């Protein structure tokens, strides 16, 4: 396990930026505490010898399920419902703010 499990507010701000999430000052302080707590708690996994263990992410043994890489067109109805959910749009396209 990582030695440094105390997460500073500066680190929380960095993580929040990576996650693209705006936090208040109170939230930043709260998460610094909570992330430190959780990291302290999971430290016990360090007791487990995993040197010769292969990690798993999938438990049913399936590997590499392939399909043809072809685009399928959605129905007009589907497109219309999707478009209704767009926060901002023009001529049926999603409108986004400028990037630069």
């Amino acid at each position, binding site marked *: 396990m990582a030695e440094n499990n105390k997460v500073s507010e500066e680190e929380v701000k960095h*993580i929040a930026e990576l996650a*693209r999430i705006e936090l208040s000052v109170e939230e930043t302080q709260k998460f610094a505490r909570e*992330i430190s707590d959780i990291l302290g708690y999971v430290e016990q996994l360090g007791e*487990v010898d995993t040197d010769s263990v292969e990690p798993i*992410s999938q438990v049913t043994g399936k590997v590499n*399920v392939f399909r043809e890489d072809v685009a399928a067109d959605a129905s007009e109805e589907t497109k219309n419902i999707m478009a209704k959910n767009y*926060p901002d749009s023009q001529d049926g396209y999603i409108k986004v703010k400028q990037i630069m």
Partner: protein
Amino acid sequence: MEIIDLDIQKAAKGLADKEFSSVELTQACLERISKTDDKLKSFITLTKESALVEAKKADERIRGGERNPLLGIPVSIKDVILTKNILTTASSNILKNYIPAESATLIDKLDVKGMVMLGKVNCDAFAHGSSTENSDFFTSHNPWDLDRVPGGSSGGSASSVAGGECFYSIGTDTGGSIRQPASFCGLVGLKPTYGRVSRYGLISMTSSTDCPSIMAKTAGDAAIILEAIAGEDKKDATTSSNPVEKYLEYVQNFDIKGLRIGIPKEYFIEGLNKDIEERVRGAIVKLQELGAEIVEISMPHTKYAVPTYYIITPSEVSSNLAKFDGIRFGYSAESDSETEVKDLMEVYMKSKGKGFGSEAKRRIMIGTYALSSGYYDAYYLKAQKVRALIKKDFDEVFEKVDTIVVPTAPSTAFKIGEHSDSPLEMYLGDIFLSAVSLAGLPAVSVPCGFVKPEDGEKEMPVGIQIIGRPFDEKTVLAVADIYEKDSGWTEKHPQI
């Protein structure tokens, strides 16, 4: 017996024998909802009109001679499961106006069977929690004691079925979210094997453990529902190609004699309520009397399941919730007149900052940390290795036994607002549930009696959990069915 107290099999027989119609069944549920849902708070969205239309169609199909046990039976659906053209919120503010363009695969399958959907039910927002108290809208109530939670995250599924508002519910179980509320509300809750039921159309939480799951009144009902929703799906590459079995037929013809049931010592630990332990051990003795062989077993990595789960879950949550960025759907700071945004980055930051509730934010932050550069090996990779060992514990034990029986929860349903934040209690709440989820195994919680909690007068339900080999839903359901029929616990109904 009131019509709303019937199980699916009895209701289907009543429909076939023309004792009542699906419209009458549906109206009985709607009437019940109008009487009880102010107290239970199960439903976020009621689809009364379309339910009556579906019921009418079901009646026509029944008149035409069609017989299938789900035809014309009213159901509630957890609000993390997409329903085309019907509001689907995940009980979250960020999706409070979201209308899906497609339905989940399991909804399409139930539509083919002729389900009557009464509406969408409450849960913890994005299924993050174990009480519905993390719902961004309201908390649901336990039909056995309205001062208590129904459990969660599939709490609205539990309160709606136990409260007689519908005959069954489809929820999800990522780390216990169907089994724990089933235990708290005196119901049968089945989490199938990972990959048995398509996840297509779930609002994802933890992609490697999410399982669409079943809240039912009896094990036989759960078998019927599983048969309807299980199977391979091209839209979910993790679904299994194993054939869907005749679960109900198997359950009805099962002989428990000689079945080996493992009792792991690591699950009977300090902190487990003594009265609950007594009920669970009583159920184990009963299973032995019925013909099962009881085997003491050990699973040494059990205690690492919770810390492993506490890394894997937020990591996958942080990835899955990244899409709610205010661009394509959901709350957007850009269209919020109270919020000013100058560029795309601010749209992301403010949409998430204002849109997500505190538990979602907490998980996003922990997960992003665990996956970030420099920490990935120490946390996420390490957890995936320990996960392999947890699975190995089960693999080895299943060479010696056919099923494992453990408690579902260490306590009965707790009072609303009184969930302790103490790490030990949080740990205890998850210990019985998370190893099964990490190993992807099927498990069912079935009622095993009632216990009067120390802080109350009303007796509350308790459940035992029967865990099976991968894709052996039929055996766990059969054991649940035998126990349930012998004990009679599932025939009790709460007075609301």
